[in-house]
């Protein structure tokens, strides 16, 4: 049930990211709610489960929009691992900690992508292309954290089937 719900959520977010978001923002400045969901879940579930969810969500993104299988899976899994790892040091019951983590991890996620693209695609992805939309993207993701983190956190508190019981807050 939890897995089905997770995939449905990822599917819904990806459909919106592919269809609605291009009408609202240029591609460089689009926020990444899928990444925010992965970060939120990893903060609550820890690095192991978080990175597995990141891997699955990234793989789905690769299939739908990716130029190669594994690119987003790698970057999302790595980001989720770091989110889970860093979650030990933050207060999960207040949004400030996850917010700061989202800022940092959005930058790291984009850097992972920038690094992987330069390695695998023989494209001279410029530093300017990487850095100039970063602030807008980070702010967008932070805004989405206010929409995504509280319901995910509450689902964990209620011991919902969406989150495993052993991590109930």
């Amino acid at each position, binding site marked *: 049930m939890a897995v089905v719900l997770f995939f449905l959520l990822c*599917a819904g977010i*990806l*459909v*919106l*990211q*592919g*269809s*609605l*978001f*291009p*009408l609202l923002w*240029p*591609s*460089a400045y*689009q926020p*990444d709610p899928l990444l925010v969901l992965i970060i939120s879940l990893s903060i609550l579930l820890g690095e192991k489960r978080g990175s597995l969810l990141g*891997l699955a969500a990234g793989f*789905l993104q690769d*299939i*739908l*929009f990716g*130029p*190669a*299988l*594994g*690119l987003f*899976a*790698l970057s999302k*899994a790595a980001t989720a691992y770091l989110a889970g790892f860093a979650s030990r040091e933050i207060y999960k019951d207040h949004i400030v900690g996850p917010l700061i983590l989202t800022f940092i991890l959005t930058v790291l996620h984009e850097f992972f*992508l*920038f690094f*992987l*693209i330069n390695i*695998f*695609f*023989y*494209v*001279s*992805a*410029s530093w*300017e*292309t990487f850095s*100039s*939309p970063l602030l807008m993207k980070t702010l967008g993701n932070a805004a989405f954290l206010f929409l995504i983190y509280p319901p995910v956190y509450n689902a964990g508190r209620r011991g919902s089937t969406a989150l495993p019981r052993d991590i109930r807050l």
Partner: protein
Amino acid sequence: MGNNPRLTRGKAVAIILVILLLVTLTALTARERLRLTFLEQAVITVFAPMQNLVSQAAGRVTDMVDSFRHYRQLEEENLSLREELSRLDILQVQLKELRQENYRLRELLDFKAKTTYELLPAEVIARNPNQWFEILMVDRGSRHGVQQGMPVVTSRGLAGSVYTVGPYSSQVMLLTDPRRGVSALVQRSRDPGVVGTVEGLGGNQGFLIMRNLPPEANVQVGDMVISSGLGPLFPKGLVLGYVLEVGDDEYGLLRYALLEPAVNFNRLEELFIVVERVLEEEEGEEEEEEPAPEEEGEGEG
């Protein structure tokens, strides 16, 4: 659990293996692939109708908002388009005459029949939400006759080519994708030396750049740049863009031209996939003898 060194080592090995597997998978699939895996095809087939639904709904809402916001501008545009249409009607008649004359002259010179294109209309249902790759999804796939590598155009010019094909949808790599290069020439000068590669600048900057122009190249601001037909993907004569600026490259040996793309890549909604066909093969000798001014699409010049 965390104190057990064997488990920790096992965990580290598992992580390294997963990373290696993903890196290998990325390296293997980074090139253009002829076929998608069954899993990819299944996922894309399931997602395509959902994308289509959301895309159409969102498109309608934004169209409505846009038409309210730009009502006055639309009215003026409508008027100028009507004027343009009347001028084009006259031009079309002249074009028909010229095509017939061209056909007769070609026959006299014993030229082979020209290649003509069949256009398959397609709607954009999703766009890659990422600045690094300019890929979009259209609602036509292998079941509609789409094949990998087919050029994709709009009424204004070349938009890109088919990147991967699913049964009912396909991915199109746009001209602005940094991995896409098109062999091109400046239409006015037609100097055989004036052939460059038009590449996207990446980062959604909206311009194209024509590189590798020789120093003596005859290029001016406003010149139209078309595909040269030298590459394996794109036929000759498709409009790529218009020259905005000409300059020397970083080493001063060659020149470059900055182009404004003919196609507005930010507002792509409908596209045409070019299905190439040769008249000679499909219609035979007898049909070739008659002038064919009503042919679909444009002929190779």
